[in-house]
């Protein structure tokens, strides 16, 4: 962390070599976030390049008292959402796996079985087309990046209740799409506890947490 702070300080003072190291340190996170929000790898590459060039310009204005990653996520998500909107919200059409069971969600619950992440990625890209850009961004930040609600609220500059609303709507849309398109893949009774059962769903539990 100390190294990262030093890199940020040096890059803010115009040290191109330090900035290059900072790019290498953060590029995975930026590209992955842009990829999951836009749904296209080439778009993600373009967005990420734009994000880092913008970062190079505005880094001198960065307040070291604030959290750098939150700031970087904000630039990234805003750029990705803008890109998604300029594209009309339509991503690249990808073929679904010929054999959905290849996903390995729960096809053999009694055995050690590796999940097919590439197939899962294709499923997400297809189903996430049904989400509004902000819902998608919140879902990506919450579920894939693992950020907490308060930080997502700071990134998107919205209230925490707005974040929770987007998150729950996104989850419901994706769950319904999974149940509709992949009913055989889900654990028996999956999703049933989420609706209309007081105190039963993980959303309520996490909100209390």
């Amino acid at each position, binding site marked *: 962390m100390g190294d990262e702070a030093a890199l940020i300080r040096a890059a803010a003072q115009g040290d*191109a070599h330090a900035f*290059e190291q900072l790019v290498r340190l953060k590029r995975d996170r930026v590209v992955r976030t842009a990829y999951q929000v836009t749904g296209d790898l080439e778009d993600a590459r373009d967005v990420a390049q734009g994000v880092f060039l913008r970062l190079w*310009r505005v880094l001198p204005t960065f307040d070291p008292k604030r959290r750098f990653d939150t700031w970087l996520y904000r630039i990234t998500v805003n750029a990705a959402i803008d890109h998604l909107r300029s594209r009309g919200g339509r991503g690249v059409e990808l073929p679904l796996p010929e054999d959905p069971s290849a996903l390995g969600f729960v096809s053999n619950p*009694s055995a050690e079985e590796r999940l097919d992440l590439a197939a899962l990625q294709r499923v997400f890209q297809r189903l996430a087309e049904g989400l509004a850009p902000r819902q998608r961004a919140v879902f990506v930040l919450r*579920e894939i990046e693992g950020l907490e609600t308060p930080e997502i609220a700071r990134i998107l500059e919205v209230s925490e209740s707005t974040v929770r609303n987007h998150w729950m709507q996104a989850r419901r849309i994706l769950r319904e799409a999974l149940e509709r398109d992949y009913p055989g893949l889900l654990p028996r009774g999956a999703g049933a506890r*989420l609706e209309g059962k007081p105190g039963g*769903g993980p959303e309520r*539990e996490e909100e209390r947490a």
Partner: protein
Amino acid sequence: MMGHLAPEQLRGMLPSEAAARREALHHLAVCAPCRARFLQDAPERVFALLALAPLPETVLDEVSDGVRHAVAQGRAKPPRRALWWAAAAAAALLLAVGVLWQAWSPGWEVRTPLALQPRLPAPQGEAGEGEEVRLLASPGDGQLVDFEIGEVKLVMIFDERLEL
């Protein structure tokens, strides 16, 4: 491989700490029984495992290379808005210097060309109003500007050799 996940994690509450969360996700990626229990209440949470999906190294390198070249060529800064601000500030500074130089220059004063100074006694009262002003001679290349304000018509003649 780590042991099976704790009950609270299987209810969808993955650790918030990055390393612990990643370890839990790695376990979920390879352990179908834990995965089945994890997805029991919230199947859409299977997409949390995309945090483990590797990104193509070529794409990551393209990002780094593109940024490095742009920075090296100076394409990334200064931003356009800063250029406009710099141009506006420079123009304002030049204007201010020019005005100050004019105001403080010892030889500067408002001068009226001799040819335009009145040779006749100054008109009395409203004298001059409605009188005809005749142009006696204009041997040079003078400039004439005329304009009207309501019913009043003004004519301005600029010629240093003008005689009235």
